[in-house]
């Protein structure tokens, strides 16, 4: 890969991440409508499935299998040696992860604090359930509240994971590159010839 291709890959992943986060927010609003029921349910389910397909397509094309798009955007150029290529790829992907992690962290700070202080609220509630054998009213949430709570929780986890450096994804990208390296391709073609 060239330097430009690696930069393009990082930018595409950033765009993909932000698109998925925004789409998930819309999905969250739509899910609360579905759970609420009503006359527009069929239309909402249709929209929801379209949003879901678009989200999966973006995740696949922009984040996991974006090489064809990268080659279309940048074309060919002088390739880096494997050592420098690894360094460039790991660094640029990690920078994208940290940058988007900060953006998500700013949005999910209240959620993180709620998660941290949740044991203070959970134990009295459990006590209440065990003592009075009734479900506390403070735990009854509307469908909209549930969907937003799940969305915020997932967003907070993603922020923490991205700030940790997104190691699994970077390893996955390195493995993809390894399978495409000339050495492995030669081995593959030799194997076919032998067969």
């Amino acid at each position, binding site marked *: 890969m060239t330097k430009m291709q690696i930069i393009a890959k990082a930018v595409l992943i950033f765009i993909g991440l932000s698109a998925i986060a925004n789409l998930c927010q819309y999905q969250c609003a739509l899910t609360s409508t579905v759970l609420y029921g009503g006359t527009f349910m069929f239309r909402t389910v249709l929209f929801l499935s379209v949003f879901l397909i678009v989200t999966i397509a973006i995740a696949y094309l922009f984040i996991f299998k974006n090489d064809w798009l990268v080659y279309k955007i940048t074309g060919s150029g002088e390739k880096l040696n494997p050592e420098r290529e*690894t360094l460039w790829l790991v660094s640029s992907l990690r920078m994208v992860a940290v940058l988007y992690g900060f953006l998500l962290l700013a949005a999910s*700070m*209240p959620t993180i604090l709620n998660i941290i202080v949740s044991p203070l609220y959970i134990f009295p509630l459990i006590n209440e359930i065990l003592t009075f054998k009734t479900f506390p009213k403070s735990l009854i949430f509307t469908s909209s509240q549930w969907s937003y709570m799940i969305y915020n929780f997932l967003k907070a986890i993603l922020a923490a994971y991205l700030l940790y*450096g997104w190691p699994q994804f970077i390893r996955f990208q390195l493995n993809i590159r390894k399978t495409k390296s000339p050495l492995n391709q030669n081995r593959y073609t030799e194997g076919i010839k032998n067969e």
Partner: protein
Amino acid sequence: MNKMHTLIKIILSAIGIFFAIRLLSPLSLGISYLYSKPSWETAGAWLFSLLLVAGAIGLLMYFLVYQHDKLTKKIVGSEQLPEPDSQVQWLPVALRLICIAGGIYFLNTVIWQTTFFISQLAFFKENTRSIYTFAPYSPRDILPWIIMLICGIYLLFGAPHFVRWQVKKTLQQCTTSKKQQDEDQSASSVEI
């Protein structure tokens, strides 16, 4: 001055201008308040918020656009560096820049929240007129913004511990990958 310094100056200026424009975006809402003949409390709160935003924009422009030389030297670490030919030199610098951008984003959010908080206080004071004494915000609501302010200041100073940890992890991952590659190569040579 080398290529790295010039590039960082450009990025810092871009960050400064971007966040200054971002801070200005609620101005239209504030002007619309003035047309609705607000009370003294609302007008005062609006004026205070405006001063806060203007101060933040002034600081941003001063440090990131006019005085970016000093900041650039601090980010790069030394005044004169050889032309960077390896990613290792760029990595901490780029991460530091990302941290600064993240810090400004955090502080930007805190400023917005503060102006909103001030307007809410003014609104309650205007509408309740000492009938109710409760505040529109509890300490639990304000706590995230205080933590965000602290995080923002830490990031604005370049987050040295975080950057060091990230660089260490990145280099570790590269070394592991190289080892694996070497093992694969040696395995393939044995096969041949």
